[in-house]
């Protein structure tokens, strides 16, 4: 089990200072009514203006090199900033994917030209990304993607569909996983490549899919023979699978896997503190214990990322445990409505609770299902 250690990392004074700065920035934004705290804000609540403001504070692309307009700060500093934003339910959806994973992918695999043209815009909060992995016929079985990129003179021809791409309708780019050569009989993971696709190109169409709550955040994107320039290929032709696995470690390990509905918990406690003191301390204690453990694990992964490690399995641990925690939290609050009926809750709290209840089934689907997480862990345990 030694390979699944999560070494304890202390928060230094510098990080605590940064935390304070972000917190007072958020308080000011709230006072100026720049946003309304939302549940699941990193998926649902997009505000390009707010993203731009964060960029001007130097809180996007934090760990990117200065050379490309980044802030050259640590993954731990980025962790602190994202935690504070999530805990306040701030509207971070617009830039979330670009800041979390796409920027790092480009820095790692992109051409000099791409780095120079795109990274500064991610850092300033003016360039947004969507994820191009799932397809109508490829969900958990990602290696079965059918979207195809064919080599043509001076570039590539892209043909296929991507689905469930959160925020594609607001995004400038999508990193598309496509097949560039047939899978070999032995290894389906061969022959896949990643492409950096400008969504404003001709023959790209983005169509919204309302989710079960009626909101639009995810999309189906059609690539009908889209002509890509040669340098749209991100990284190495045929190595898309290993690139995408690294990207998923960034996607799965962050605090959004357990803080998506934190605003609900905080408002709930603030509202009912007096009653909770008398009869709810055990419930709250249980939630605190789990949440704090998750924070430590996720922070520990941030430090692994900082050290250049690839904590893909550890990320699966955090995602699996975080998903469970969020479900348990909503369930715990629901049971409390036995003491104070839901209709007596303040309306803002009711809304947050109902939003969370409806959205919670998606938390163990997006970014990889529970089944996939357990499969990844089982493989590392030597069971597969």
């Amino acid at each position, binding site marked *: 089990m030694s390979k699944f250690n999560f*070494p304890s990392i202390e928060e230094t004074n510098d990080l605590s200072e940064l*935390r304070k700065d972000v917190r007072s920035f958020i308080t000011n934004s709230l006072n100026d009514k720049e946003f309304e705290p939302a549940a699941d804000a990193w998926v649902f609540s997009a505000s390009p203006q707010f993203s731009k403001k964060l960029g001007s504070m130097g809180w996007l692309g934090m760990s990117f090199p200065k050379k490309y307009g980044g802030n050259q700060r640590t993954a731990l500093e980025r962790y602190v900033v994202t935690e504070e934003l999530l805990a306040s339910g701030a509207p971070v959806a617009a830039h979330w994917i670009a800041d979390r994973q796409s920027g790092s992918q480009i820095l790692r695999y992109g051409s000099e030209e791409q780095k120079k043209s795109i990274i500064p815009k991610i850092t300033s909060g003016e360039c947004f990304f969507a994820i191009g992995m799932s397809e109508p016929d490829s969900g958990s079985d990602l290696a079965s993607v059918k979207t195809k990129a064919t080599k043509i003179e001076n570039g590539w021809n892209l043909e296929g569909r991507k689905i469930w791409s959160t925020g594609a309708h607001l995004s400038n780019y999508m990193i598309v996983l496509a097949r560039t050569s047939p899978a070999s009989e032995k290894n389906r993971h061969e022959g896949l490549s990643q492409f950096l696709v400008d969504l404003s190109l001709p023959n790209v169409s983005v169509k919204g899919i309302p989710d079960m709550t009626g909101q639009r955040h995810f999309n189906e994107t059609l690539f009908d023979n889209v002509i890509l320039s040669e340098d749209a290929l991100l990284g190495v032709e045929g190595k898309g699978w290993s690139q995408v696995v690294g990207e998923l470690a960034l996607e799965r390990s962050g605090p959004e896997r357990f803080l998506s509905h934190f605003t609900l918990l905080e408002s709930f406690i603030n509202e009912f503190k007096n009653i909770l003191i008398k009869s709810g301390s055990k419930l709250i204690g249980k939630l*605190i214990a789990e949440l*704090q453990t998750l924070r*430590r694990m996720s922070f520990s992964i941030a430090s692994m990322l900082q050290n250049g490690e690839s904590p893909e399995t550890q990320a699966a641990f955090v995602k699996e445990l975080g998903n469970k925690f969020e479900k348990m939290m909503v369930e715990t609050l629901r049971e409390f409505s036995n003491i104070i009926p839901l209709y007596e809750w303040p309306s803002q709290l009711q809304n947050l609770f109902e939003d969370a209840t409806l959205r919670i089934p998606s938390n163990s689907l997006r970014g990889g299902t529970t089944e996939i997480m357990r499969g990844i862990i089982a493989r590392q345990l030597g*069971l*597969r």
Partner: protein
Amino acid sequence: MNEELGIILETTSKILSKHVNHKLRQNIDNENPDLTNLWTEVEQLGLPKIAVKDKFNGSGLPLSSTLPIIKLSNNIGTPIPLSETILSNYILSESEINPPNGIITYAIDAKDLKIIGNEISGDLISVPYLNLTDKIICITEIDNSKQVILVKSNTEEKELKKNFLSEPRYNLKLKKCKILDIKPLNLSINFKYLGAIVRSAQMIGAMEKILDLCIDYCSQRKQFGRALSKFQAIQHQISEMAVELAASSAALSTITNSEVFYKNNKDIAILKIRAGSAAGKIIAISHQVHGAIGFTQEYELAYFTRNLNSWRNDFGNESYWEDFLGKDFLEKNNQNLWEYLT
């Protein structure tokens, strides 16, 4: 981990692995010469006094550094009261009592303790390994000040407590027992908190072993023409165990890596809650994937799961610490949850 501790761990692992096998564990209740040999080597290594001050011939390591050793000992399933002796000796040494050699155990709880002159009477509850020693420490309050008392028990009055623990445990009626030493308790942390930390480290050591047992067993055992480990239903159950274990280990590393862990009751509560709830899940799943063989005395799984059942209840179960943690936060007025967490 510092180099010194690394070397101690390596040597400890060699010595324990040399002596411990499942047969030794099964004879745990009896007077056992093999156990005596094992203890002698452990003592030669200096483990019992590893957290004792230099002036009392100890190694003077901070208690948090002893946790990896305690975890290791229980990972190997060593049926000796090492954690009890380390903790008792630490408490004695901190309270300026020179710890005697040999095994010392403690009473997890005590009732109606009365001291007259140099003698003590009353009930000691849940005393581990009293078959191997007659020296016990207990903690009681006299005139509003906590005292640590080192007692030599008169063996006639002990009652073997059959519980779900694999290790022997006793209730003991003290009748005018001789007090070897008594001093004001000098600990920067409540005995219950210390016990909770040590039991959690023990649980995590045992859970690591249980996970390994499950992986080995399911990889070897074939049903329906293939190894159990090839069934997705089994893979997912074992993955769940690994997740529970990783979360508990993360909670432990917070304590192990901090020399001032005793300042933070919050982290202790989190550790005991996390390890205790993981134990519940891991007991259930490990027995499920093992089938009937896991339910026998002959196979070693049950030695570990029985201990878990007991340790998760010692020094406050999950409910106790959840309530503690919840109150700790809720009674801090003017602090919202996010401020409390960060």
